[in-house]
């Protein structure tokens, strides 16, 4: 999901003014603290594609005494594309890729122990939720951190609830899978 | 008619499915109604007598219109503590009942239906009490009196039907706010009784007063040379004034005591008691008003009795045998004792109800480590604090009446009268203390469970 919209997020960051690739990476990681950090290479290739598509252009090259850096700025077309994307609704999870469910079914088919797997998976989820909560509840945490942690927490919580109800209905599921 | 039948059925089902508290309310309300009916029936039967008769009880006190009027007045006065008692009974389970009826309203019942159901609930309990009292009273009456007059029968019928009707009306009236805003009431944390009950109590006292006046006037038609209307009118006026004053005094004393103590309280028990008083000073006004009336009347009577007994024993110019007078005095004393007993029962019921309503909060207090002794002390202080200034004032009033009477007749100061308020105060504390064992029983961790 992150990779899907990296170009738009970079366009958004460029909307505040021309910026270097390294700057963009740093600002991205700051603003979206719970997202997967961007690799510098990814930033670089994405910027080149934006230039190729006419959504961004090179602003200038400078070195400020350090290594040489290229600054980029957004084009009118880029501003338009950004406005279109920002207003577009995200499709509500059209295909659920549920790895946990797949593992439960496979465990039943191969004579494994789905209950044990669910219990361990639940403990792992709780551990991640504790980490995220610690980040969120830390003193002086800014709202962006709290909100992005909340987003992840709510998704993990949804998984957890699904695991709880599934664990309680494993007997019926086993019978159904075995019969099929 | 069909809708009335449906409402009746619903009222019955609601009562049947309710918890122990509701059954207590029905039983106590029926008892109160039975007492009221009994007093009123006797008064009506006596009031229907005309002129001199030979009544084979009470040492001839009932033979003459004059003394008979006195007995009627005493009987009607006994209705005042009974009203206080009934008012206290109405509070049992009031929070749950209000929620339930508001729930009915939310479920689509019209305001009228809810009122009718509530009226039926109270009215049926009163009907039960009134029926029992009537069934027991009429045979007694027939044994004493071969052929009661038509007037007596009409009076009996009126009382037997009137008590449940009045009960039903009071039940419907008490619900006016629930009916007005079902949602608001469901979400309220508890009842704030306001001055309504005090007004209701006063209305009852006024009714009793008017009926007494009529009864006394009709039993002894005023002769041209003996204008009889004066003294009874004055007496009714006095009772009304004292009753109104008592309700007001009790409520005001509670509020002022609460306000003063809440700011200065040093212990947790005093603080809790004071804040409860400040929050709802009129809650106990009815019972406390009855306590005050009993104190005034009891104090005055004790003094007057001492003086009169003295007179009777010294045997100065008596028209009748000493027995006649002593029986009269004793009967009055019994009436006052009965009034005190009824009042104390009302007080005990009120304290127990206040505990039962708050049991969840109390359980949380105990769980948080508030010692039961502190909660017990707070409970007693709630009764003791507002009552102290009021009883003191009422005691002074009663003693003043007794002292004035003694002074006028040239007798020594009746010390017994001054002891009455002390005894009444102690009895009130004891009555409130009867609910302390309930504190231990109702404060259970099970109350903390929300599931």
């Amino acid at each position, binding site marked *: 999901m992150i990779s899907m919209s990296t170009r738009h997020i970079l366009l958004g960051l460029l909307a505040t003014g021309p910026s270097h690739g390294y700057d963009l990476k740093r600002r991205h990681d700051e603003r979206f603290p719970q997202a997967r950090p961007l690799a510098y290479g990814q930033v670089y290739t994405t910027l080149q594609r934006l230039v190729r598509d006419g959504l961004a252009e090179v602003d200038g090259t400078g070195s400020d005494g350090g290594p040489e850096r290229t600054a980029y700025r957004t084009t009118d077309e880029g501003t338009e594309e950004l406005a279109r994307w920002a207003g577009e609704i995200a499709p509500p999870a059209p295909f659920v890729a549920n790895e946990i469910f797949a593992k439960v079914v496979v465990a039943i088919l191969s004579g494994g122990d789905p209950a044990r797997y669910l219990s361990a998976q639940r403990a792992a989820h709780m551990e991640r939720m504790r980490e995220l909560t610690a980040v969120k509840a830390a003193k002086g945490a800014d709202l962006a951190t709290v909100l992005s942690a909340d987003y992840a927490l709510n998704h993990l919580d949804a998984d957890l609830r699904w695991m709880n109800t599934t664990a309680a209905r494993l007997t019926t599921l086993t019978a159904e899978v075995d019969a099929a | 008619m069909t809708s009335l039948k449906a409402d009746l059925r619903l009222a019955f089902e609601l009562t049947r499915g309710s918890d122990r508290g509701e059954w207590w309310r029905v039983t106590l309300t029926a008892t109160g109604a039975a007492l009221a009916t009994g007093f009123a029936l006797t008064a009506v039967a006596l009031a229907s007598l005309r002129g001199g008769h030979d009544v084979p009880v009470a040492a001839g006190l009932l033979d003459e219109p004059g003394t008979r009027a006195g007995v009627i007045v005493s009987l009607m006065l006994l209705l005042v503590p009974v009203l206080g008692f009934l008012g206290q009974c109405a509070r049992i389970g009031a929070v749950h009942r209000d929620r339930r009826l508001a729930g009915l309203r939310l479920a689509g019942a019209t305001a009228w239906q809810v009122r009718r159901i509530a009226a039926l609930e109270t009215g049926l309990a009163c009907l039960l009490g009134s029926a029992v009292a009537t069934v027991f009273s009429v045979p007694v009456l027939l044994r004493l009196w071969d052929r009661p007059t038509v007037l007596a029968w009409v009076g009996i019928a009126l009382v037997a039907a009137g008590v449940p009707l009045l009960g039903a009306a009071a039940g419907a009236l008490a619900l006016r706010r629930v009916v007005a805003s079902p949602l608001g009431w469901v979400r309220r944390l508890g009842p704030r009784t306001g001055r309504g009950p005090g007004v209701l109590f006063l209305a009852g006292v006024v009714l009793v007063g008017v009926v007494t006046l009529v009864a006394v006037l009709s039993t002894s038609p005023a002769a041209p040379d003996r204008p009889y209307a004066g003294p009874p009118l004055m007496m009714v006026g006095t009772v009304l004034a004292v009753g109104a004053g008592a309700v007001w005094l009790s409520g005001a004393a509670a509020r002022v005591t609460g306000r003063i103590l809440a700011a200065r309280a*040093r212990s947790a028990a005093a*603080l809790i008691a004071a804040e409860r008083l400040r929050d709802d000073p009129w809650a106990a006004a009815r019972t406390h008003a009855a306590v005050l009336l009993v104190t005034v009347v009891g104090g005055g009577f004790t003094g007057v009795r001492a003086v009169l007994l003295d007179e009777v024993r010294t045997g100065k110019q008596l028209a009748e045998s000493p027995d006649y007078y002593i029986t009269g005095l004793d009967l009055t004393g019994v009436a006052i004792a009965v009034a005190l007993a009824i009042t104390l029962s009302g007080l005990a019921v009120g304290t127990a109800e206040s505990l039962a309503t708050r049991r969840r*909060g109390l359980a949380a207090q105990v*769980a*948080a*480590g508030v010692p039961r002794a502190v909660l017990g002390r707070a409970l007693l202080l709630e009764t003791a604090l507002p009552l102290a200034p009021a009883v003191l004032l009422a005691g002074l009033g009663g003693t003043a009446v007794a002292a004035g009477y003694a002074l006028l007749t040239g007798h020594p100061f009746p010390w017994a009268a001054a002891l009455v308020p002390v005894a009444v105060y102690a009895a009130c504390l004891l009555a409130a203390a009867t609910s302390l064992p309930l504190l231990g029983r109702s404060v259970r961790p099970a109350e903390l469970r929300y*599931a």
Partner: protein
Amino acid sequence: MSRPVPLLSATGLTKAHGRSPALRGASVELHAGEILAVTGPSGSGKSTLLHCLAGIVRPDAGSVTYDGRRLEDLPEKRLSELRRTEFGVVFQFGQLIPELTVLDNAALPLLLAGTGRAEARARAGEWLERFGVRGQEDLRPGELSGGQAQRAAMARALVTGPRVVFADEPTGALDSLAGEQLMTALVHTARDAGTAVLLITHDAQVAAYADREVQLRDGAVAALGVTA
């Protein structure tokens, strides 16, 4: 490395309500300054476990030890004193006295401990401020929102500086934002004061505020969560 002695521990707790068993041999440990979540489905015995640990009810069998003292050996009077000096309790709702002002409610435990009224009110005010209940000290609990009432209840539970706070579904009646504010305030205060917290909840997002999780199932501990 040997584990330190727990501040509060229970072994083999059994308790029945009438004929239905609520706890069947539950054992749990709470260390000083630790935040422990007890989770489990409805009817798994969470509340009963809290009541036993806090000395509110006595278990039918098993033992609770607090700071070297066995609670079952203490008389009710000492238990009650322990609850108001060393423990704090917060329930889902209903623990504030409706007739007292918010400030007096928070000051109540201090009054019970014999602190003067003025000092008790001053200290209660500080705690209310710490929990973000400002400008509402003179209101009655009925005039507060659910979240404010729960924060006031938390302030009251912590005002005596207890070593353990027991919280039974403290966010149960709150929306998620009010619940988050309450839990953040609780965690910060408990960490600053070194107070241990036993937190009962059925909500994983609330349980995630704890250092550790214990799951109850049918009155016994089902699995120990991963230690942080």
